[in-house]
């Protein structure tokens, strides 16, 4: 199984026609778990309460609250799934192919925050998130190496 991945890595997979089901599955998982992780961290930090006092004793209290929050651990778990899926898909698919897909997270995170946390999202913020998605997608489609052309 692992050997097959190593062989695939030599063939750039930029054509959407020969996408493997595992690639599609991971490309869907990456932005969902990345965004969900941040939303869960936000949910957890709301439970911890606003961090105002930056003195060492109160930071220790905040840290204890953070580490005992189930939502925070769910968020960290979700970000771990994101990170492992991201590394896996990058081990056989081109970065320029993966990056625009993961950029979906910049729109997905506000959407999930709106749906799951009930955040009021102003219109200009949606437009800004869309700009960021397009910008990151454009950056991802440009040649990766700029220090020396092949």
């Amino acid at each position: 199984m692992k050997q097959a991945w190593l062989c695939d890595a030599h063939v750039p997979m930029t054509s959407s026609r020969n996408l493997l089901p595992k690639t599609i599955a991971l490309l869907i998982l990456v932005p969902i778990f990345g965004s969900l992780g941040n939303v869960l961290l936000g949910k957890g930090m709301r439970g911890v309460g606003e961090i105002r006092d930056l003195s060492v004793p109160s930071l220790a209290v905040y840290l204890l609250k953070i580490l005992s929050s189930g939502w925070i651990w769910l968020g960290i778990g979700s970000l771990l799934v994101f990170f492992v899926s991201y590394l896996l898909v990058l081990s056989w698919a081109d970065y320029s192919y993966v990056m625009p897909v993961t950029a979906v997270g910049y729109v997905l995170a506000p959407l999930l925050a709106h749906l799951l946390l009930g955040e009021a999202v102003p219109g200009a913020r949606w437009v800004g998130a869309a700009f960021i998605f397009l910008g990151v997608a454009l950056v991802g489609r440009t040649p990766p190496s700029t220090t020396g052309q092949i």
Partner: protein
Amino acid sequence: MRTFLFLAIVVLSGTGGDIAVTHAMKQIGEVKNFAPRALLGVLGRVLQSGWMWLGIALMALAFFSLLALLSWAQVSFVVPATAANYVVGAVGAKFLLKERVSQARWAGLLLVAAGVALVCAAR
């Protein structure tokens, strides 16, 4: 004001952590052999690299600053705003690492910067 201070810490320490970890891994060399024993050897060299520890410390700082930021700011603001790291990363790569950044890439980064500015304005 405090929001932008913490946002700056998240973005700068996150990008700094990426650069430090990249520097450490470039010194260690490309990982080509995925046999368990070879990977343990790589892990040993990773743990001895000062740059790697600096990178890990900066990434930890970025993570805890992000948590602090999320304790008072909305997720729908924080996540898009942290996209500023693309712009900071490209500027850092150009001036610190002397990488060339293509025009198409600057165009994309300009869109990202405009998006971040909109998100910050609509806070």
